[in-house]
């Protein structure tokens, strides 16, 4: 049985746009490849895919995806993506960015997108350094990291993104590593399927300005890729000790582990999205006013001012 013509499969070829301008060896290539593979699997209509980013190396992402996209200003990808998500429930909205964009200049927006539980997926390619501006300290640079703005070593305590995300109220929080493509794909897929604000922190190495920083999480470089053992709910005694993704305190404990820590889904819990709550308000309001036209509504309001 042949499929109808319009259900032509969306392929990586269709989704590929400009060749990335990232440096050879950059972890972000793998993130892009994993994203394409997940989209190939999920088969969303091509025109409904929308990628949004701010400023930074990883924020160039939308240029490399052939889909509707926005390359916005530094730190504000999430507010713009929120506008798209709230007003266009038909779209699949993705925001991409780095640690500077997401945790420093845009840090406040991340807390509020999380609190509001806006329905979109946000992927942070965290490289612990400012790469596009050529090696300044980033909010996730560990203390002691020598950069052009901290020539004798970074002195400020870095942000712990996982703690920030769990505490901020993101309803899906996961962590993965750009060298672990299969893991990355599975986490991306779960993030995309999650209704609400889903965030994936990807350790993605900057081979030019911070080479080797993530080797501790990469088995091929002698590190350990320690995957979270999630509860399966089979009632077995060993399941007792496994991680419950709906337990915020347990997620916070995972986030407190010594670097390189664990990888996988830290937290996942469904609560009403801002999209749903606003739509409920719109629906109940519209129900009250019935099928009044714009002119009717305005007239009624003017009448109350007479």
């Amino acid at each position, binding site marked *: 049985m042949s499929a109808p013509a319009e259900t032509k499969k969306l392929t990586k070829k*269709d989704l590929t*746009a400009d060749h990335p301008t990232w440096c050879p060896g950059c972890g972000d290539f793998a993130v892009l490849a994993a994203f394409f593979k997940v989209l190939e699997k999920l088969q969303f209509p*091509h*025109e*409904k895919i*929308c990628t*949004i980013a701010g400023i930074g190396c990883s924020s160039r992402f*939308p*240029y490399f995806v*052939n*889909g*509707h*996209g*926005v*390359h*916005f*200003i530094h*730190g*504000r990808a*999430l*507010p*713009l*993506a*929120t*506008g*798209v*998500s*709230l*007003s*266009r429930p*038909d*779209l699949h909205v993705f925001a991409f960015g780095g640690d500077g964009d997401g945790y420093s200049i845009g840090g*406040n*927006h991340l*807390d*509020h997108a999380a609190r509001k539980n806006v329905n979109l997926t946000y992927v942070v390619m965290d490289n612990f350094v400012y790469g596009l501006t050529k090696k300044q300290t980033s909010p996730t640079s560990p203390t002691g990291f020598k950069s052009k703005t901290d020539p004798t070593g970074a002195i400020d305590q870095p942000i712990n993104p996982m703690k920030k995300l769990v505490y901020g109220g993101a309803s899906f929080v996961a962590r993965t590593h750009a060298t672990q493509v299969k893991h990355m794909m599975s986490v991306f897929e779960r993030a995309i399927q999650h209704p609400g604000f889903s965030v994936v922190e990807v350790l993605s190495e900057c081979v030019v300005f911070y080479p080797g920083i993530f080797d501790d999480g990469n088995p091929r470089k002698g590190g350990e890729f320690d995957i979270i053992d999630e509860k399966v709910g089979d009632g077995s005694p060993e399941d007792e000790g496994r991680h419950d993704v709906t337990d915020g305190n347990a997620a916070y404990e995972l986030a407190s582990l010594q670097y390189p820590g664990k990888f996988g889904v830290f937290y996942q819990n469904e609560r009403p999205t801002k999209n749903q709550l*606003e739509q409920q*308000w*719109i629906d109940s*309001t*519209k129900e*009250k*006013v019935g099928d*009044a036209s*714009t*002119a009717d*509504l*305005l*007239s009624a*309001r*003017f009448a109350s*001012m*007479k």
Partner: protein
Amino acid sequence: MSVSATSGASETSESPSNIPEGVTELQDAVIRFAGNSQDGIQTIGGFLARLAGRSAREVMTYMTIPSTISGGASIFQVHLGSGEVLSAGDESDFLFAFYQDSYNNHISSLKEGGICIYDSDHVEEIQKIPGIVHVAIPITSTTVEAIGGSSRDRGKNIFVLGLVTQLFSLNRDKLITLVEKQFGRKSEDVLRNAMLAFDAGYAYPIGDLLGREFDLKEGAAKGEDKVTTDGNTAMTMGLLAGGVRYGSGYPITPWSTIMEQLRSELPKYGGLFVQAEDELSAVSMALGFAYSGHTSVTGSSGPGLSLKMEALSYATMAELPIVVINVQRGGPSTGLPTSVEQSDLMQAIYGSHGDSPRIVIAPKNVEDCFYVGVEACQLAREYSCPVLVLTDQALATRIEAFSQPDLEKIVVEPVLDQDARGEDFKPYPIDGLTKHAPPGTEMEGGKYPVVTGLEHDEWGHPSGNPDVHAKMNARRRDKVKAFGETLSLPEVYGDESGEVLIVGWGSTWGPIRESVNRLRDAGRKVGTFHLRHINPMPNGLETIFEKFDHVVVVEMNDEGLYGNGQLATLLRSRYCDPKIVSVCKTDGLTYKVREIIERIDGVIA
């Protein structure tokens, strides 16, 4: 107070007994209520303005609000008239003083022959001013007594409303309907107390104390109840009529009441207004709505507009349509949050980095806030660029009456254009206006657009090519310029040629027009035009300038380092005409007519 016919006698005695008895007919009256903000004096003013709108009277109000959370000295001034009312009035005919300090601070606002009614429970020292009539009424204790011995004096504003109703022979039935409409929504108790206070005020023998009553004449036009509201409400209505369905903002005085109303109103239209975590998020979210294919709005007041500037430059570069309302207040910095100023003009036009042309328009009065709101939406859609609307604190809060707009003709139903785009789709055609393909649009050529803040070519591809940057800068400038070419010359009011041409923009329209009337009455040859479109301006203003000896630009901003206000600087820059001079001020208050007239004579001398 212009008095018609009945009384020609002198009213300079401070003793009520010397005033001619009977009913005095008034053409117009300026009534000032001075008290504290929690006394609800705005409520009295609001009722009187609403009544005027129902009685074929013109009305304009003026109020000061303290920027404190609760309390603080506050005034509300109502100018009611049967003719054209263009300003809130320089001086008042009647003063209602609730406290000693309100008395002390406002007694000088009375005209000669003015009447001061004060609360003798609070005001103890009266100044002996020749020509001012004093009437002592124990407003607080009488109100408390009327409502039933409660120690609360909450109803004294409504008591005074009753007093005013009787004093000016206002239409009691209409007022009661309005009072019932407002307080009936709350609870029966609240309404009952309000009516008790109103009746006590209405029954108070103020006519006996004064020895006369007044009859505020109704205007000529009958039959139409006017819309009576403030500028922020009119602006909100204009945005809704213009097709705004989505927006985002952050609270700041005096912008907040627009966002509050949009938040409540938009769901009725299937739309949404989101309170963002900060100004940067608000403008970014609004751009997200715009990118998604909607007519979108954000807004703020001075400091908040500064915070939005980076994103507005992006909107110019990416050619996204967005309406930005800026309710100006006194600056710089936190400045005077509840006072008026027109000092954001340069910020509105030039406030962003890079060459970022955009459209800037300004409403002249409350009614115009509606029409400017509608126009801003149309312009944003047509030219796909930011449209900044400069209103101000005075317009935002003052109440005027105007005819209901012809909604059937004006209303724009927004359309989300997702028609498939062909292979030749160019978001930025060098010879045409931008029409984006919002997300969700099928691209028949298989290539999807990325909207960017990087310089880009016609297809939207980033480009660092020097020629491309020069060409695209010109493109973004020329489309705004092209809009300027569609504008007709502003109408000149008063003399078409002569001694002085007064040029204004924004909320100074009323006082400037009244100044022209008074100067012409005094035999001077004076005209005025008011700029609604400030960036771009209409072409050919020089043909008006050349017909006058002097061009005086009246603005509420500082004269700057070189003696010119912000619009005057722009006009001088464009026309290189030293005849253009400035009248400026930054005292946080609206212009008085007398002030304009005196200052003009100062600068042209």
